[in-house]
């Protein structure tokens, strides 16, 4: 396992390319979207070259092969997060759509004006805007758990907000800016005790940590394939079967129905009930391959590798005068370092790093309220994944010294 992690870098074709002529690529932007291993790229390529047809209703060899490949991926995903049944694995476009699905289907059926939803200040826009839209449409009230200066959730404030008896608590498992890994199990237990349902935004955790929905405590979990070695265009909503059964349909069309007449329709069984129209078939196949790849490496090993890297990265970054890294210490966070460098705008940092082939992201990382909270317009963010190494950290640091020099 650790062995294959050590050599896995060569599984990713793109990492062998040059950023610019003669300049190797140091990819530190996996928090935005990860690269894909050969096995994932190949699975989709093979799919189109050999097996493609529309799935589910076909009685010919291609339709059968395509269906088996596509539905097989659902089994892989089920095992990956230890869901009780494949019926609980709903494919969406991305984590964002998964959260919107909950907002449109579950929330509109179960919440009314005045009902409260607890969110946090560290949420990604994906776990803010769907609730803003809902608030605008049906008048639910949103409360926000503050973030401490250390980048942790303020647990006292959380407990107080729970006394207002929210119907839903929705928070990220891991912050895409601070890297903070939130204590989901205890947060969820408290929320449940207060009578709320719990939605966990797993966009940053499922790719990087072992996540087991049997112990997590969430009622809903959302994540995206493209951040976990899988393709763009597909994400997952997991929820417990009873919840999904009770929820009204979201989008209508082929596949999500059992029967249609001019007068109306009967929804299909799970998981299809929530999957309208021709699905992202090749993307399902790619996600299955990604999950198999990650399973092969072992998520414990992946998490340990990233823990080691972030520990090293924080050490090195904090040694650079003028650099400030946001978020908790390495023990409490995943492989994300959002930082500023005094006197240099993050855009300029990113631009200069890019000339050295070092790819980081600069901006608000779809977490404007969190940046407001720290009174920042933007940060630069280096994010790590299984294929990154200490060398990558070193190259980042060397290049940051060049930035400093240029702007001195």
């Amino acid at each position, binding site marked *: 396992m650790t062995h294959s992690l050590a050599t896995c870098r060569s599984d990713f074709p793109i990492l062998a390319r040059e950023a610019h002529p003669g300049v190797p690529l140091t990819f530190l932007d996996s928090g935005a979207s990860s690269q894909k291993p050969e096995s994932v790229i190949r699975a989709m390529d093979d799919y189109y070259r050999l097996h493609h047809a529309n799935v589910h209703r076909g009685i010919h060899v291609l339709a059968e092969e395509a269906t088996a490949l596509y539905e097989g991926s659902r089994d892989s995903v089920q095992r990956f997060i230890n869901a009780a049944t494949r019926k609980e694995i709903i494919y969406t476009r991305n984590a964002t759509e998964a959260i919107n699905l909950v907002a449109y289907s579950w929330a509109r059926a179960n919440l009314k004006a005045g009902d409260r939803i607890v969110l946090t200040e560290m949420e990604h826009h994906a776990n803010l805007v769907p609730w803003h839209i809902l608030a605008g449409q049906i008048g639910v009230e949103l409360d926000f758990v503050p973030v401490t200066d250390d980048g942790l959730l303020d647990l006292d404030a959380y407990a107080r907000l729970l006394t207002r008896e929210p119907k839903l608590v929705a928070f990220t498992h891991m912050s895409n800016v601070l890297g903070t890994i939130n204590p989901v199990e205890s947060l969820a237990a408290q929320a449940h005790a207060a009578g709320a349902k719990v939605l966990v935004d797993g966009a940053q955790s499922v790719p990087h940590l072992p996540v087991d929905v049997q112990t997590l405590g969430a009622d809903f979990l959302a994540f995206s394939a493209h951040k976990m070695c899988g393709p763009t265009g597909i994400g997952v909503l997991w929820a417990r079967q009873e919840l999904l059964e009770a929820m009204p349909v979201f989008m209508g069309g082929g596949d999500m129905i059992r029967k249609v007449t001019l007068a109306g329709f009967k929804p299909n069984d799970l998981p299809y009930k929530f999957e309208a129209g021709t699905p992202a078939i090749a993307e399902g196949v790619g996600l299955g391959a990604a999950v198999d790849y990650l399973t092969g490496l072992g998520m414990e090993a992946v998490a340990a590798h990233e823990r080691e890297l972030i520990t090293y990265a924080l050490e090195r970054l904090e040694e650079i005068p003028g650099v400030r890294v946001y978020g908790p210490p390495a023990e409490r966070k995943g492989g994300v370092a959002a930082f500023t460098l005094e006197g*240099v*705008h*993050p*855009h*300029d940092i990113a*631009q*200069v790093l890019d*000339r*050295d082939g070092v790819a980081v992201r*600069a*901006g*608000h990382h779809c977490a*404007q309220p969190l*940046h407001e909270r720290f009174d*920042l*317009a*933007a940060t630069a963010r280096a994010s790590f994944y299984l294929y990154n190494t200490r060398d990558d950290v070193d190259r980042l640091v060397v290049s940051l010294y060049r930035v400093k020099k*240029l*702007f001195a």
Partner: protein
Amino acid sequence: MDDFYRELILDHYKNPRFRGTLDPHSFTYEDENPLCGDKLRIDVRLDDTGHVVESAFTGRGCAISQASASLLMEKIQGASLDELRALNKDDVLELLGIDLTPARLKCALLSLKVLKAGAYGLSGESNPDE
């Protein structure tokens, strides 16, 4: 990189010309680039014949957006209102003298956008260049 952050740009970034606000002014406009958090305000004072006698900017942002504001202020001294309105993207790129990637174009053009919105007395949304 040395292209991107030419001496000129770094100089205007580190030592911005025409930084400040004007009171009174003939027009003032402020806008931001919400995606990157860059903010810019430009104040302009015109004389009786509608020519710029003074202009100034404040704001925060990256080297590209700040330098482009500073360079733009320099350029418009003495210009007529019509000349302000006729300014375009290429004028700014020429001032900067670098090739910009699409992601940075917005940074470079924020000052132009703000200036023209003010000059037209229009809201930022309906800037005729958009």
